[in-house]
Each structure stands twice: as C-alpha cells, then as structure tokens.
C-alpha cells in the first residue's frame, strides 16, 4: 500500500475461461449456507413481526424491512461477485478515508439512544456505518498486509496494521459502541494471526492490551458499559438492570426445550419481559421457538459457512484473498460467539448483532459485501495445488 498501483491485472481471465471453469470456481455451498442463514433471519423477522402485533407484511413491519434489506443484500452480493476484487487493492486508500469520513459523519450528525451517535438517518432508513466499517477495514488491512507479504514477521507490519486501525476504532469508541470496537479489534487480531505474523510480537501486543484494560476502565468505558460488565461478573447484584436482560434471555432460551415452542408462540411465555428481542437478543427467540434442534442447525450453518470462507482463504494464491477470508471469518466468528454467548449467559451484554439473523440493514450489507468478495476471489484464482 505504500505505492498505489492500478492493477488491470488479468481482467481478461473471466472471458478467456470457459463457463464450466467459472462454475466450478464459484463456491455454490458458500452461497447456499449464507442463503439458509439469511432465510433464518427472515423467519425470525416474521415471528417478531407477528409478536410485535403488526400484520406480517404491514408497512414498516420488521419482516418488510428484513425482506427489503435482504433484497438489497442480494444485489450487493451479486455485484461484488462480479466485481474484480483486485480493484480493492487499488482503491484501498480511498476506501479507508471514506470509511473514516463516514464514521466522523456519524459522530457529527448521527442519532442514538441516550446521547450516543450510532446511526445516520437517511430519510426513513437508518444506517449504521460502523457495521460497514468492519468490512471496509478488512479490505484495507488485507491490502496492507498482503502488500507486506514477506515482511509480516517484522514488528513494523504489526504496528502499521494497528496504526491503520486506531482512527476508525477510536471513532467507534466515541459513539460509543463497545461491541463494534471489540469486533474491529478481533478482526485485526484474527488477520494478523492468520497472516503468519510473529506470534511473539502478537503475544507482546496482547499483553499490552491487557495492561491497557485498567486504563480503559478508568478513562474510556462509560458507566453503562461498566455496569454491564459488572452485572455479568456478578448477576445477583442487579436483576432489574443489565442483569435483568441476561436473566430474561436465559429463561426464554431455557423454556424452548429440545424442540422449541414453535414460531410466533414464544411471546406468550416471554410476555414482553425480553428486551430488544428483534435485535441483539434475537437468538433467544430463535432458541425458544425452534428449540435446541433449530439452534443446532444454525450453529452447523455458521460452521459450514466459516469452513467455506476459510477454504477460500486457504486456496487463494493472492495473499489479499487469504487475509480477506481470515478477516471475514474472524468477524463472523467473534460476532456469533459474543452475541450468542451473551444471550446464553456466558459473556457480558454488548450490542453486537448476530450475523444474518439480527435485523439490521448495515450488518446484512457488510456480510453481502464480504461474501461477494469471497466469491470474487474464488472466481479469480489459478488453481495451483488442487
């Protein structure tokens, strides 16, 4: 990334290869798994719409919005698949600055709950640019680290990657959005790890982060964020505040049992006790209505999807592809872990959406970008090994 180069590259590849080869290079499984997860998301949007008391397809219902965003996401996915990902390497710097610009814009004109600035309203649509920031930072970091292939063992590369991450990370923290900033750090860590960077330096850095925690506690974290962490560590203290959500979520999940209570049947049991059931706690509703079995299917789909992303990364002979896959896998894994871990009470409450299932346009769009780029990478590799 030191030198920005236009890379017309092998733009002709697609045209020269036969349709059959293209078809084989396209990872149909990945698309299927993603589509199935998105279908789960639409099903949950349906059940939440019904439970919110609106007609399923009424104007502005959760389902209607979910269908709209899924449609947009499909278009984005197809567009990204068609788009030669290598242009990203060329456009990495502009992308980076646009990303930072959008985050600054969010801070400037964004709305949020209780004095925070999380999303920008464009007409009736609210868009959370911090969601987009995740995927854009994966592109930027993959480009940066990919260009330093061969020198990734040095401290300089690690520090460079960290320096790139600090401005967007800081802007997200200022919103304040602890969850997304945690995801950004996980993406950074995952990509550095998968790039093959020196474990010694990575561990040293991890140690540094640990040492920074007391400082962050003192100066960075807001009171409500501290409350959430404390209530997670000692849930008995406060069953009405942050701990209340965790308690309610666990009761909701538990009451699902092995087979679930059936779609739209959960509300009678929850009786409005579970807050934000359509967003961050949507998995609780899923586990309640579809049961352990349904949740297990979702887990298997996530694992299969991660497997397909990682195998793309593995196969890619372009380090960008490897690193992009690693970043996307890290993002999805950390979000699934933190979100579901929060719902089932093994992690503190943070506002991290569950990929595909949580209803949020930005989250779905950034996943569509990520998966589209993965398919684009798949289509544009020379298979050397297999």
């Amino acid at each position, binding site marked *: 990334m030191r030198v920005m180069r236009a890379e017309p590259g092998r733009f002709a590849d697609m045209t020269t290869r036969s349709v059959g080869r293209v078809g084989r290079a396209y990872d149909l499984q990945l698309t299927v798994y993603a589509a199935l997860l998105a279908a789960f998301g639409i099903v949950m949007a349906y059940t939440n719409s019904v439970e919110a008391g609106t007609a399923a397809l009424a104007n502005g219902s959760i389902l209607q919005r979910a269908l709209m965003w899924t449609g947009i996401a499909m278009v984005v996915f197809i567009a990204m698949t068609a788009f030669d990902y290598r242009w990203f390497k060329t456009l990495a710097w502009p992308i980076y600055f646009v990303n930072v610009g959008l985050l600054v814009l969010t801070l400037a004109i964004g709305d949020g709950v209780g004095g925070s600035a999380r999303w920008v309203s464009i007409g009736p649509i609210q868009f959370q640019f911090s969601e987009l920031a995740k995927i854009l930072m994966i592109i930027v970091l993959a480009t940066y680290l990919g260009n330093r292939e061969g020198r990734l063992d040095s401290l300089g590369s690690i520090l460079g990657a960290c320096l790139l991450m600090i401005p967007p990370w800081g802007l997200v923290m200022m919103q304040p959005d602890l969850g997304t900033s945690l995801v950004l750090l996980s993406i950074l860590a995952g990509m550095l*790890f998968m790039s093959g960077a020196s474990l010694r330096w990575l561990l040293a850095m991890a140690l540094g982060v640990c040492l920074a925690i007391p400082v962050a506690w003192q100066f960075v974290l807001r009171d409500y964020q501290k409350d959430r962490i404390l209530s997670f560590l000692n849930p008995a203290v406060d069953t009405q505040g942050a701990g209340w959500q965790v308690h309610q979520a666990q009761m909701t999940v*538990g009451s699902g049992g092995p087979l679930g209570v059936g779609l739209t049947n959960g509300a009678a049991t929850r009786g409005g006790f579970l807050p934000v059931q359509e967003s961050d706690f949507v998995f609780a509703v899923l586990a309640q209505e579809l049961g352990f079995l349904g949740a297990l299917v979702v887990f298997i789909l996530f694992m299969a999807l991660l497997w397909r992303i990682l195998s793309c990364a593995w196969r890619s002979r372009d380090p960008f592809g490897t690193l992009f896959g690693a970043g996307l896998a890290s993002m999805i894994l950390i979000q699934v872990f933190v979100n579901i871990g929060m719902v089932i009470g093994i992690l503190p409450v943070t506002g991290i959406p569950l990929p595909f299932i949580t209803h949020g346009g930005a989250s779905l769009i950034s996943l569509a970008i990520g998966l589209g780029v993965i398919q684009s990478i798949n289509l544009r590799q020379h298979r050397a090994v297999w």
Partner: protein
Amino acid sequence: MSDSHFTPNRERDRRPIRFLVFGLITVLVFGLLTTRLAYLQINSGPQLAAKAEAQRTAQVALPAPRGLIYDRKGRLLVQNVATWAVKVTPADLPYSDRDAVAHRLASMLGMDASEILTTLDSAPGSRFDPVRIAQDVPQETARLVAESSDALPGVEVVVETRREYPDGPLLAHILGYTGPIDEGTYTRLRSQGYLADDLIGKTGVESTFESELRGTYGLELVAKDATGKSGDVLSNVQDAVPGASLTLTIDRTIQREATQALKWGMKAAGLKRGVFIVMNPQTGEVLALVSLPSYDNNLFARGISNKAFAKLLNDKNKPLTNHAVQAHYPPGSTYKLVAGTGGLQDKKITPSTLIRTRPYLKLAGAKFWDWNRRGFGMCNINCGFGNSSDTFFYQVAGMLGADRLAYWGHMFGFGQRTGIDLPGEAAGIVPSNQWKVDTFGQPMFGGEVYQSGIGQGYDVVTPIQLIDAYAALANGGKLFRPQLVREVVGPDGKVIKQFKPDLIRKLPVSQSTLRTMRLAARATVTLRHTYNLVDMPVKVAGKSGTAEFGTRDAKGRLPFHSWFVGFVPKNPYKADFTKTDSPLVFLAFAYDSRTIGNAGTEIAKAFIQLHFHIKKDYLNRDLLKRGNHYQSN
C-alpha cells in the same frame, strides 16, 4: 501482480498451522455454545420454563370479607365499605424516578412527598409487595391517579374494603379498629397468609378476635406483563371464606345511657377523664364500657395522618387509652369491701362487733384522721361501712395485718388481670409484705397497712377489677371473668362458639358474710352517706370512694378521684339485698374530680335515671361544683 506465490517465506510456512488453530478455535467456540445451550434447554429447560411461567403469572391474594360485629340485641356496629386505595410496588418503581413519582403522587393526594417516601421505606415485606400509600381516596383523585399511570410507574389504584364504625367514639374503646399491619406483626404472621399490605385488627375486639373476624383469604392466578401490571384472572386457586361475626355482650342502648350520664357529669364537674361500666353480675357480661375522652376509630380505619395521630398521642388525657381497663387508680373507700369481708371471714370481727371510731388514730407519732375529723362513735360493720368510717377500717386492717388484707384483695381479683377480651389490660397493685420487700426492700409499716385498708397508699385498681369485685359481692361470691363477646357466628349464620360465664373463682367467703356486706352496702345509701340516692325509686346498694392522689395544693388539700360502684336487686323497686339475684352492677369513676360532693355518685344517679326512665330529677348539681370542702369517703 509482483507478489510471488512460490517464494518461500516464514509467514507462509506458518499459515497451515494458523489455519488449523483457527479451525480448532471455531470448533471450540461452537462446542462451548452448544454445550451451554444444551445445558439451558435440555437440562434446565423445565425449571427455566417454570420460572418464566411464574414470572408472567402472579398468585394474588383475594381478601376475605371481614366478619361483622353486632351488639347483644343484634344491632350492627361495624360495616365493610368499598374504598379506593393507592398502592406502590417498589420493585416496579425505578429508583431514579422515586422522587419525581413521590412528588407527583403527593400533589395528587394532597400529602407530603416525604411521607410517601417514609411509608415506602418502612414498609414490611419485599420490594415486590405493594405498599399502601393512601386509603379512602376520593373517587375523583383515584381516577386522576389511575389515568396518569404512565407517569407513575409502580403506582396502582385498587378497590379495598375498609371498616366503617357508624357509632365512632361511642364504641371505639370496645371495638378498636383495623389498620395496616406493622413490620414485626407481619414477620410473625406471614406464614398464616397475612400480606405485607394487609389490614389487621389493631386494638379492641378487632384485635382480640382478629383470627375469627379475618376469615380465610382466597388465591387467584393472574396474568402479568413485564411492567408488573396484573391482567386477566386465569384461575381461582382458592375461594375466600368470609370471616365470622361477633355478637357482643354490649347493649348499645345501655352504652349510650352510660356515655350520656358520664358526659353530663364530666361537663357539670369540669372533669377531664371518666369511666362508666355496667355489668351483669350473674354472668360477668359487660353491658356498657365507657372511657372518656374517646376518639373516632373511623380516623384510623380510613388511614390516619401522622399529624392527627400525633395529636391523639400527645393529648394529656390519653383518649387512646381505655381507662376502664388499661389504667389503674387508687380505689379509695370502695376498697373497704376487702377489709370488711376479710375481717368478718377471718373472724376478727362479727356483724355485731362494735369498734370505737374516733377523729383520728395515732400510730408511731402520726395521726390517721377519719374523713369527717370527728368519728362516728361505737360502730359495727353496718355503721362503719355505711358511714365509710376510716378509723373503723384502720382498726380492721390492723387486726388483719398486711398479708391477710392482701390475701383478701387477691381473692376479690385485685392485683391480677381480669382477662377481659381487650388488649393491654393493667394488673393493679395489692401491697403485701412480700410485695413491699420486693419493691422497696422492707416490709409494710403499720400506717401503710391502715392506708391499705381504706384503699389509699400503694393500692391501685382498674375500674374493671373494681366492678368485678362488687359483681361477686352482688351474686353471692362468684368472681367471673368480665366478657365482651357472647357468640362467634359463622358466615353461614351458625353459631361457632358461645361464651358461657367464665368463673375465675368462688370466693372463699360464707354466704352470711357476703349478705352482711351487701346489707352494709345498702346502709351506705340508707344512712344518706350518698345523700338523696336513697330517695330514688330504684333501690341501690353500693359504695362511694374518694381517693387522694398527687401533691397537695397551697391549702394542703390533695386532688382526688371519686368513685361509686353499686348494684340493684332483681326487682329494682324492692330493697331486698339478702338475695344474690342482682342483674345489674355499675361503676362510675371521675378522675381528678375536686368537687364539693362525690361526682361518681351523681354520675351513677344520672345513669339510673336514664336507664330506669325515672322522670323526676334527683341530681344534685351543687355537689358537682368545684371545691375541695367536703370529702365523702
């Protein structure tokens, strides 16, 4: 692309192991999530489902209608009326909103915000139990509060029944009242189904017969949403069983007559406190029990304000104290019954024994005066009791000695609680040598024995003890426990419990001794010691008493209480006191009377005129003037 895929480098070599590690981490993460989910859904599923169920339903107690109270003639003395109450459930009121909600509620209810917060903080029970903030709220206000429920989280308006006492102060000391349960009582009674915001009998028979009146609360299962608001009734777990009703021994008409007589006397003599009791000596049933000043128990039933309660508490004349039962006073000459009966039964004197009465007796250099400062010459018991000669009874007391005198006091029921169905009964004091040693470390002096014989000195009795002793004299020696309740009647109208006369003891006194004392009591009237009482068509035997207390004024005079306790024969117009058939014994007590004559006697006469519908007025209003000139003992 200049990047070489084939140039070996260290990071590329590391990638396979990094991919492996990443894969392992992924498997580990999903393994952990699956394990925890299986634990929640399969292992703890049923419990968590039950918890969720418990959370969205609530078992709500269904108060049972409280039993009613009737007088002996079946007149209703208590009603249950529906009222609006405002309650707050602390758990549903976010702490940050507490002050704002308290202020808003206070302005609606016309209360102090601090009073609301104090009530919330001092409420028994958990944060999930509703706390009653205001009772008996006007309907307008109730609607206003209910409509503002969005701005008043945790606040609810409920319909409650409360007690209404149509006669108010007339029966307040007997009926008592109900009020919110206090923390200690709640802790004790919660296992019996009492609620943290329950109403409970606080005093009077409302308190002594609480378990009979309360009934059994029912239980219903109610749906509840996250805001804690109760919704539809899902099922009736247990029906409420109404409380049993009470039939009192009290006759409201006699209670009114007694109250009217006492009020007249207190007004005429400028008295601050008084007691009037009417009993049936054949059964121990209390027909009327008046303690003045009284208070309106409806104030408490409606939820008394702190200010009004403080005013009642700080009143010098203690309107909240039932002076007939909860306070004791020196009995004065009425106590001569004990010395006289004891002297006769212990054979220290016979009915015909003559004792020289004098202006005073001298003992250890001190003079013990007769009340008229002259004496009555040679006197038998009839003359001594009839004229209420102090020097006569000094000598009888001296013959008996402190311990025998105390023995007879105890036999008549003094120095111990009678066991009347009212809370907080006082025991009184009967001084004996042992008592004196226990209390002051030395035995009784001779002069103290003299004093004790005429109901002065250490002697103190409750009015209910005194009337009970004279009831035993009137009925031939049966000391009954005074009773206020005749029957407990179930909600179906069946009598659950009927109270029989409850004998404390048969006095160890011969019938002839008691007859002698009854005749002596009649002599009190016939010797005109009680002035024109003898002129009334209703024939009364009895004893007046004047009991000094406190400290002497500038002229060396002591303030005194005056008593009269008497009874009438079965045929009240025929003066036959040899029989033991008296149906009516009554007692008048005038606190700090300082009247020219005996205020107690005049009050008793006023009662007789009212009760027996005597047209002619026998009342000596002159005797009720203030002035410590005359002391009838």
